[in-house]
Structure formats: structure tokens, C-alpha cells
């Protein structure tokens, strides 16, 4: 008997469109600490189609990392609390999934590269142990010896440089473990069986002399090497979605360039979907297909990266782009935005940007604030949350 066919997803004009790999709807996250309740994310919605790289940009404290951690539910709860919203990953709502099922989604489904390469590798284990653990998790799930809600992909190997079609991620079925495959203790995979795989992934992230590196402890490696090993670990699970949370922020500028070049090459090679989080507009322009701009926990603009950068439709995006030093042409001080980021525990009413906005009118402080709306006269999928988005182009 065939499983029930899901209803195809309809676009705004009633045509069938592809189901996005990740769909965040109205996600709100609070931090409840002694000083009060901080609204780190307020009503954030975004879609990530399979095979796309979506960048999230914003200044420090705007909720980028909270978003990155909230999607695979890695937030510390408490102090964090997910107030409302939906995180649909391949049709599953991760926020209503029972807690014990979450590890089954992580890794092979959603994998993550963190900000701090210094502390993200376990100091007690050699590189090999950590890499092999990731490979083991994927192989166990692929072979059905361990349950996984999102089985790893079959039939291709990133390290062999054969890219899958981007849409493969959508057609892979959700499989539980096969009980008969779990029988027989000796056939349970052990990490020493994965030396070759681990070597392959080290070569994939362009590490010289992987044989030696494999037997070293993390503290014997440089920051750039550690970050590459983190990337190798994340990739070795062949995730459908890779969340890169400021992967280059803690690295110095030359290493940063190397890691970015590497990630760009890897994106070309493996065509995984990536949510790329950064505070650096240039990095996002380089890496991403779509970009989301965040301010004080709100997603204020979202759209194709070229279009957002050339025709910003939100005054904050405009100001952010203007203050980027790459547009600085020795004609006085670097332009900056007057005022400061609002306290997340006491957000202004209405649009949280209105106290600093050059276009602000009385309507801007009325609750509820503006919501993301499709912008006319721009590229498809360009949305902004501003009542006066038409006037943004006229700003200096």
C-alpha cells in the first residue's frame, strides 16, 4: 500500500512550488534572567529552499546566534524559552518533537559549525576520535543500525567529489531503524573502523598531512585547523542543512579568508543547504544566495542578496550598508547610525527601529509594528518590514 500522498505546496498564484527544506514561522524566543525578560527573537519567519545558502546578517546582540541555536533546539532552556512559533524541517515541526527524538534529527539532518573553534572540540579526545564519532553516527543511521529521523543520503560521497542534485534532500524518505539490522553485537560499527573515512574528510577540508593530524589533540592545532576540523565533522555527517554560526568571527583575517574560500569551494562541491550567520556584510555577499537582515530580534528584510544590497527596502539595511567601510571614499568620517540598539527587555512599541529611523512617522510607534511584505518593483522574494519602504531609496 502506498503511503498517503502529501498535498503539494501552492505558491501565491496557485502553482505548485517546492517544499522548503527549512521553514521558520513566527519564532519568538525570550531569555528570562534576573534583570528581566529579553526578547531575543520576535516573530521571525524565513524559508530556506533546498540547495540554497541563506545568510543572516545583523549587529551584535540582534539574535542571530539565538536563531542558529533555536533551529536545532540547542538553546539552554532555561534561561532561554521558546515562546511561540514553528520550525519545520522537512515537514517536521522540531518545536513539538519529543525531546528524545531531537538527537535523531541533529547531525545527519541539521549539523552545525560554531563560533568558537577553540572550545568546540573536546580537549580530551584526539581529532580522530571526534571525527570518527560523527562518521559513525551517519553510517549507523544509513545502515539502519541506529534510528535516525532523517537518514543520511545514499549513493554519493562528498569526499569523492560527486555532488548530488540539490533536490535529492527533498525526496529522501524518513526512515526509522530497521529492527533486524540492529541484531548481532559484532556488527555494530565501532569508530576504529572509520580511519579511512576520517582521512578522506580531513583531505576534503584541505588539511595537509592528515595522517599526523588525526592523532593529535585539539590543543596542538591552530584555530584555523580546528575550525576546518569542525567543518569536516559537520560535513562528514552529510547533513541536509548546515548551520554556520559565524564560523570565521573568532579567526584572524588571513585564516578567515582561507576558511571562507574553503567553504565556498565546499558549497560548490557538495551543494548542501546552508544557513550562514555573520555580522560581516562582505562575507554574506560572497557566500549567500538570499540574505536576511536582523535588527533587535526582528527580521526586517529578506531577499536575494544582490537585490537587497543594491535596492535596500528597509532604512536599517540602508544604514547598515552605508556604514560598511568598503564604500568609504576618503570624504570625511565613516557614516554611522545615530542612537543605539534598544534594550531587548524594553523594546520600543511598534517598529523597534523607529527611534533611530530617519523616515519615522507617528504610525511607526503603533502596535503591532510592520510585518514582512513582498516589495513591488524588486526581484522575486524580496520582502521588507517597513511602512515606507518605497521611500528608502531616496535616503542618503
Amino acid at each position, binding site marked *: 500500500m502506498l503511503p498517503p500522498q502529501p498535498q503539494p505546496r501552492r505558491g501565491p498564484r496557485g502553482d505548485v512550488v517546492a517544499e522548503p527544506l527549512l521553514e521558520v514561522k513566527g519564532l519568538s524566543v525570550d531569555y528570562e534572567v534576573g534583570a528581566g525578560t529579553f526578547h531575543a527573537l520576535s516573530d521571525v519567519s524565513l524559508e530556506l529552499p533546498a540547495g540554497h545558502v541563506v545568510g543572516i546578517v545583523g549587529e551584535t546582540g540582534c539574535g542571530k546566534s539565538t536563531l542558529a541555536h533555536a533551529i536545532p533546539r540547542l538553546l539552554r532552556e532555561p534561561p532561554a524559552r521558546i515562546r511561540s512559533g514553528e520550525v519545520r524541517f522537512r515537514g517536521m515541526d522540531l518545536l513539538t518533537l519529543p525531546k528524545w527524538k531531537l538527537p535523531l534529527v541533529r547531525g545527519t539532518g541539521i549539523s552545525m559549525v560554531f563560533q568558537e573553534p577553540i572550545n568546540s572540540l*573536546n580537549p580530551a579526545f584526539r581529532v580522530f576520535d571526534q571525527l570518527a564519532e560523527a562518521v559513525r553516527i551517519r553510517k549507523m543511521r544509513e545502515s539502519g543500525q541506529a534510528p535516525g529521523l532523517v537518514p543520511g543520503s545514499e549513493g554519493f560521497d562528498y569526499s569523492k567529489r560527486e555532488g548530488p542534485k540539490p533536490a535529492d534532500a527533498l525526496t529522501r524518505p524518513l526512515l526509522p531503524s530497521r529492527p533486524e539490522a540492529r541484531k548481532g553485537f559484532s556488527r555494530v560499527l565501532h569508530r576504529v573502523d572509520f580511519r579511512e573515512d576520517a582521512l578522506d574528510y580531513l583531505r576534503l577540508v584541505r588539511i595537509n598531512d592528515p595522517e599526523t593530524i588525526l592523532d593529535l589533540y585539539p590543543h596542538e592545532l591552530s584555530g584555523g585547523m580546528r575550525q576546518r576540523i569542525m567543518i569536516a565533522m559537520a560535513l562528514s555527517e552529510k547533513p541536509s542543512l548546515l548551520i554556520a554560526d559565524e564560523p570565521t568571527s573568532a579567526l584572524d583575517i588571513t585564516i578567515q579568508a582561507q576558511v571562507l574560500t574553503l567553504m565556498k569551494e565546499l558549497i560548490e562541491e557538495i551543494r548542501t543547504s546552508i544557513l550562514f550567520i555573520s555580522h560581516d556584510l562582505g562575507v554574506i555577499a560572497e557566500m549567500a544566495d538570499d540574505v536576511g537582515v536582523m535588527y533587535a530580534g526582528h527580521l526586517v528584510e529578506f531577499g536575494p542578496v544582490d537585490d537587497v544590497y543594491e535596492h535596500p527596502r528597509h532604512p536599517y539595511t540602508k544604514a547598515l550598508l552605508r556604514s560598511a567601510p568598503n564604500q568609504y571614499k576618503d570624504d570625511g568620517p565613516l557614516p554611522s547610525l545615530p542612537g543605539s540598539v534598544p534594550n531587548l527587555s524594553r523594546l520600543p512599541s511598534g517598529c523597534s527601529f523607529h527611534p533611530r529611523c530617519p523616515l519615522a512617522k507617528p504610525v511607526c510607534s503603533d502596535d503591532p509594528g510592520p510585518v514582512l511584505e513582498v516589495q513591488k518593483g524588486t526581484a522575486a522574494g524580496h520582502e521588507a518590514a517597513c511602512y515606507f519602504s518605497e521611500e528608502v531609496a531616496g535616503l542618503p
Partner: protein
Amino acid sequence: MALTARSSSTRTEADANRQLSRVLAWIGQLRRGSRGLYRVLRANPLTLVGFALVVLLTLTAVALVIVPPISAAFGHPMSLTPYDPNALLPCPTVGNQSFCAQPPSLEHFFGTDRAGRDVFSRVLTALPLDLAIGFLIAGFALLTGGGLGLIAGFWDRPGTIGAAVSLTIMRITDVFLAFPSLVLALAIAASLGRGTIPSIIAILLTWWPYYVRLTRGEVLAVKHQPYVTAARAAGVAEWRILFRHVLRNIAEPLVVYFTMDVGTVLVVFSTISFIGIGVPPNVPEWGNMIQAYSDYLLIFPWVVAFPGLAIFVTVLAFSLLGDGLRDILDPRSRRALSQAETTTRAPAAAATAAGASG
């Protein structure tokens, strides 16, 4: 038919190969570990002393236990002690006065006590009992206290069953910690009556709370480290995070505390014997021996001094070893020590590789 047979045979062959590679990897790990031990011992002479003493004490204790029955089974009963520890040796007499307590001599290394028993034999006979008690009590406390501490530290998310469980564990621990453990152990030992087993039970019951506190604190410090979150993000199951990623990183303080604790347990056990509610007087036990002759400390000091010295040396040995274990268990200082000794192949190669690619 033939096909099935062949496929099953290749499968067993692959299994055998895999098993073999696992055994080899395990041996490799053991070799690496022992090499690290050797380097630490060479770099740190005090640890070497502690290690040598612990090995010597343990081997002697094992020999003392197994040699008599084995030699008896082969028809040549043999004892490692020069005299029967409870035999009353004939005392030399001068006139009508007998002098049973003789000072140390070549005949009696540690002298004899007032009843004419050989102190050396008694100290030696007590060794297996005292060591076993130290290991048993500290080991039991490590397992129970450590286990409870792991639970209390790891499952403490407010508003869940885990939080209630860990709260209960911590409050019970606090109740035990409110009493000085020695006083509590004495009270329990006194109420259970005199004997070796009751005094062991008394210490067992009072010893675990310290491990709960220690383990819980370490787990709390480690469980929010970025590498634990990274492991979670990689899809590692919770129990595996606890036993592999968290436990391995807190093992170092636990093992160090355990080794030093073996000595402390010995002292406490001897104290209970010393007060007179522990081991019966005829059983050779170090604390017991000190207690029996403490009144004669100034007249025949050797009767008290040598059991005391035995306790001192054992406690010192375990403390020194525990200190050194800290270095062995921490990969950072282990490599640092080995680099101080000799420039090994791996870090040098790593430096080249890092320079070339990083």
C-alpha cells in the same frame, strides 16, 4: 544454497577482521597510554616514588594473600611473614623478670610487642586487610557518590522529573555532610557493635557524599562547554554525551581524589580501630596495633612507631601517585611533559603541517 553459505562465510570473515582491527587499535591505545605514563614518571621523580611504592605495596599484599594457600596446595606450606603474627614468642628472662618487648634487631626487624609477638609479621599481615579496606571503601564511594553526582549534575533542568531527583539527591547529601563524617562513622560503628565488617559498613555509609558534591560540581562546569553543545549538534545521544564527553572530562579530578582518598580511608579506619570500636584486638590491623600500645609509646616506641610508619608510607604513596595521575590524565600537560623530555615526532610534524597549511 551455495550462495547463502558463501555470503555468510565472508560476513564472518569481515567480522573477524573488524574485531582484529579493534583489538589492534586497543593495544595501540594501551601502548600510547603506557608511554605517557613512562614519560610522566621520568619527568617527575616524586610520582615515580609514589608509583613504585603503590606497586610494591599492592604486589606484597597480593603475594601475602595468595602464597600460603598455593604453597599449601603444592604440599610445601610457606608463609611470607617470618613469624606467625599471633604467636607468643618465648621471652628472654633476666633473673625472674621477663622482657617480652624487645627493640628492633636482626632477628625481629621491628622488634616485638609486650606479649612477645613479632611486630614486623603483624605489620605485614595487616597490609592486605588495610589496602583492601582502602580500595573497597573509596571505590564504593566513587561508584555510588560519583553516579549520584552525575545524575544530580546532568539532569537538573528546572521543572522536570530530573530536577526533582537531583534536588532529592543533593538534600540527602547535605544531611550526611552536616555531620562530620568521622563522628557519624564512629556513631554507626558503635551502634553496630565491634568487628571488622561493622566498621567497614560504617565508613561505607558515610563516605559517598563527598563524591556526590565533587562530581556534581564538575559536571555542572563541563556540561555547558561549547564542545558538549557541539557533540549534541552532531547528533550524539544524551547518554553518550554523559558517559563519553562529560565523564571523560571530569574523570581527572575524580581519579585524583580517589587515589588520595584511599589514604584518608585508611587513616579513618585506623582511627575507628584506635578508639576501640573497630577491629578486634587479635586481628592485626595498623590502627588497632597503635591503639593497643599507645600507652607505652615512651617505653617501647617501636611497637607503635612501625604500624604508624606503615600508615604514613601507604598514605604518602597514594597521595604522590594521585598528584602524578593528574598530569597523566590531562592531555595538555602530558604532551607538555613529553615535549620537555624529548621532542617527539607528532608535535614537530604538527608544527610543520600547521605552518604549511594553517
